[in-house]
């Protein structure tokens, strides 16, 4: 086990910069999730840690060892691939024994270790089968088993669940997290699925264009996104972004006739000068929807209602918004406005996020807003 770190690491493919001078130290023994849209560099970063991709600059550290120039077969990193990458000409047993053979273990030691790991994953009855005789879920477990059969410095997982159906994926999320806890091996997990990232991460690292956009505790990132990008990427249904401006006092935001207080946590001076445009972000579950007029609210028309069971997603249009743009609000299941019925939306000051439209950064860095 070792603390894995990257220092000012870069990767360029021709004129494209996939990873841009990125520095991060991964929690020793923790599960760090790299998340971001496709092309953000998360897989490239993972492959550089594995040694499969040579960095254009910077270093990779395993503990206090600089492994940047060490080839993958001499690094002690176990990788799980999106495609599972099971060797089709070998049995499950041979697949799992393969990394142990590379380490020149004795035959009976290999057998014992493979059997123990297979048992822990519930695949001990499959050891004699070939990969093509397995279901997707079973192949996934074998791929995990091949990584877990040895004691690596780090587990690297590249979207290991994305080929599974939705139900199995949720089940395996928990399973991987449980196994990771039990083994206590530093794990770096790549996904583009923000829900998977939120549920699994001890530490969440949001990447964009080869840089870290924000990193830390997943719930804190959800509550206090540092940029509009993070706010938009983390959370489903997606956060609402509304163009507003500061009023003449500089202490409230304005959207048409509606005036709203700035969050109490935001120092008045932080917002900027009177009349300055801002982007207001509010998560769908934070929008208060009322069928009767309430103070400090925005009249809107219900356009579509999507029942989700325990709640419903309401899509709303408002005259104060640009034509064609819809707001999303999560509402209790018993709130059922008729199509085109006028409802009133309230944005609680404590729940709004304000972003500078030029830098896209959040206006404040507050300490734990109450929820």
């Amino acid at each position, binding site marked *: 086990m070792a603390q894995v770190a990257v220092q000012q690491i870069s990767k360029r493919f021709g004129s494209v910069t996939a990873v841009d001078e990125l520095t991060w130290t991964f929690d020793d023994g923790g599960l760090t999730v790299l998340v971001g849209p496709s092309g953000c560099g998360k897989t490239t970063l993972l492959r550089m840690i*594995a040694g*499969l991709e040579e960095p254009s600059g910077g270093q990779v550290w395993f503990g206090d060892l600089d492994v940047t120039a060490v*080839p993958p*077969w001499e690094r002690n990193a176990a*990788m799980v*691939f999106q*495609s599972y*990458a099971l060797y089709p000409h070998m049995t499950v047993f041979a697949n799992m024994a393969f990394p142990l053979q590379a380490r020149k273990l004795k035959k009976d030691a290999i057998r014992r270790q493979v059997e123990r790991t297979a048992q822990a994953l519930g695949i001990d009855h499959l050891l004699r089968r070939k990969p093509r005789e397995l279901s997707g879920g079973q192949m996934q477990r074998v791929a995990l088993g091949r990584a877990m059969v040895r004691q690596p410095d780090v587990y690297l997982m590249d979207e290991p669940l994305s080929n599974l159906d939705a139900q199995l994926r949720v089940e395996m999320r928990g399973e991987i997290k449980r196994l990771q806890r039990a083994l206590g091996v530093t794990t770096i997990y790549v996904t583009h699925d923000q829900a998977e990232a939120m549920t699994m991460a001890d530490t969440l690292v949001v990447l964009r264009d080869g840089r870290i956009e924000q990193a830390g505790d997943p719930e804190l990132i959800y509550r206090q996104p540092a940029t509009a990008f993070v706010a938009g990427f983390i959370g489903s249904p997606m956060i609402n972004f509304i163009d507003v401006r500061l009023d003449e006092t500089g202490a409230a935001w304005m959207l048409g006739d509606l005036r709203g207080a700035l969050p109490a946590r935001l120092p008045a001076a932080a917002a900027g000068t009177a009349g300055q445009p801002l982007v207001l972000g509010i998560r769908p579950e934070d929008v208060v929807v009322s069928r009767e007029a309430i103070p400090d609210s925005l009249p809107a028309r219900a356009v579509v209602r999507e029942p989700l069971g325990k709640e419903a997603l309401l899509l709303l249009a408002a005259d104060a918004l640009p034509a064609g743009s819809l707001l999303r609000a999560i509402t209790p299941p018993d709130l059922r406005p008729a199509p085109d019925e006028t409802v009133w939306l309230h944005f609680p000051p404590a729940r709004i996020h304000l972003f500078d439209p030029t830098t896209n950064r959040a206006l404040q860095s507050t300490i734990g807003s109450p929820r």
Partner: protein
Amino acid sequence: MRRSLHTLASLVVTAVVALFCLLPLYWVLVTSLKRPGTEFRLPLRAWPAPVSWESYLTVLGPDFRIQHAILNSLLVSAAVTAGALFLAGLAAYAIARLRFRYKVQSLTLIQMAGMAPAIVVIAPTFVLIRSLGLLSSLPGLILPNIAYSIPLSTWLLAAYFANLPFDLEDAAKTDGWPPFQVFLRVILPLAAPGLFSAGVLVFLGSWGEFMLALTISMGLPEAQTVPVAILGFSQAFQLQWAWVSAGIVLSLLPVIVLVLLFQKTVIQGLTAGAVRY
């Protein structure tokens, strides 16, 4: 009813195609068993009576020694197959799997070399082999045959390697195996059907190759392969179809044995990447 009609139709078509291929062979066999000089005697019979082994004794005898040519052919074809697969395998692996500049161009270049008709390159090849002092020798036959075989087998193998998932190589590397071991333990086993089908094509190509063999052997029996030796039957005294036929039948035997031995693998290789059956 429909189903059995369908089966019947495919049976008939298969039979026609098989007859088309096998009838000439059958005729060669029949001719080889006739007494020399009686090949064209009428009426034609489905089976010669009496069966005569005279032609076989002649072509195996001291005048012709076709067994010598068969051995030469086997040596040449085996060496060409091994050499071409090795070189084409390395080239194909690089083209299919490694990143380097001018990759597409190098494959195009190899392909262009393969497009030149044999007759175009025969004169320069002859001069080259003469300069190397390899005329009338098996190496003089093997080296150019390897070169001729490389374009097609590189192309076949590159297509095959390219279809192997990259993740498998990466997985083997992170599992702790260095590149050459990855090649041996993962790539080659997975490419075995492809190597086999390329190998069969190369082997048969060089087994039947005539023009180069004729040119390089310079009429000396030491370097004669089967096709050249059979040509010799017609020049020696007169055209004896029974001898020629006996030579052809004998030269087919090793190939038939090889095909029977590797039949299953060959079919696997030729249909690899196609539908499963």
